[in-house]
């Protein structure tokens, strides 16, 4: 009887960590953002830990999150929360989204989960962390004062994630319905 265990890191993991990590760092370090309408901007670097987690699992999500957190204005927040995003996105993608076998159903579920994760997980985590630093109170900043921003940001996150996955389905195991990690 032989048992095969998946290695913790493969050359695919390392390569994707380097590619997504460099992108995450480059976006935040340069300050290049997508300006949607004032004051709403979207930092594409903040999406890299999520995409990396989906494509290559939690360890790569953590590495990319660290790369994204290093150039942050608040590294004490981002060096914890960006890797955490990579972890929970990898598991939600593998064990919730890809469990939907019908591709026609999977897209709308993916959109709903993306929005819910943005509004009810990511946003409160960051608002809470910033409230600990004394920038503003947790309530009513979330969900009221910043609620409109988080709601719209979630929609743009859906658009970008969908575009990336639709362009590169093989990297995310989308067609097979199986996470490639």
């Amino acid at each position, binding site marked *: 009887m032989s048992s095969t265990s998946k290695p913790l890191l493969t050359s695919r993991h*390392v390569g994707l960590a380097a590619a997504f990590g460099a992108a995450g760092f480059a976006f935040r*370090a340069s300050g290049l953002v997508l300006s949607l309408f004032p004051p709403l901007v979207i930092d594409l670097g903040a999406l890299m830990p999520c995409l990396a987690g989906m494509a290559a699992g939690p360890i790569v999500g953590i590495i990319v999150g660290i790369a994204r957190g290093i150039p942050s204005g608040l590294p004490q927040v981002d060096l914890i929360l960006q890797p955490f995003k990579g972890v929970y996105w990898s598991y939600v993608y593998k064990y919730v989204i890809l469990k939907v076998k019908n591709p026609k159903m999977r897209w709308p579920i993916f959109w709903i989960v993306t929005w819910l994760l943005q509004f009810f997980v990511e946003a409160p985590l960051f608002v809470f962390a910033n409230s600990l630093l004394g920038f503003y109170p947790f309530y009513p900043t979330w969900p009221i004062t910043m609620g409109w921003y988080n709601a719209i940001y979630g929609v743009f996150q859906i658009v970008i994630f969908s575009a990336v996955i639709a362009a590169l389905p093989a990297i995310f195991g989308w067609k097979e319905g199986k996470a490639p990690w």
Partner: protein
Amino acid sequence: MVASTTGSKTSRTVVVGVVGLIVMLVVFWIIREAWQKGGRPFQKIMGSELISSIVAVVILIIALAAVYYVNKRTK
């Protein structure tokens, strides 16, 4: 024999890759401390947020091309 040789070659590649990732993160930290300091130096290019957004999209496409290439070479 062949399998073990291949296995050790693969694991050596991964070890080199992990060392490379650590070096990459150290270089990122040096860039932060020496130049960027947590700011957003290119939030506006030539005073324009539009140009900045276009450059951001170009970088995203380059990054995704790199991801595609890595995935193709290593799967």
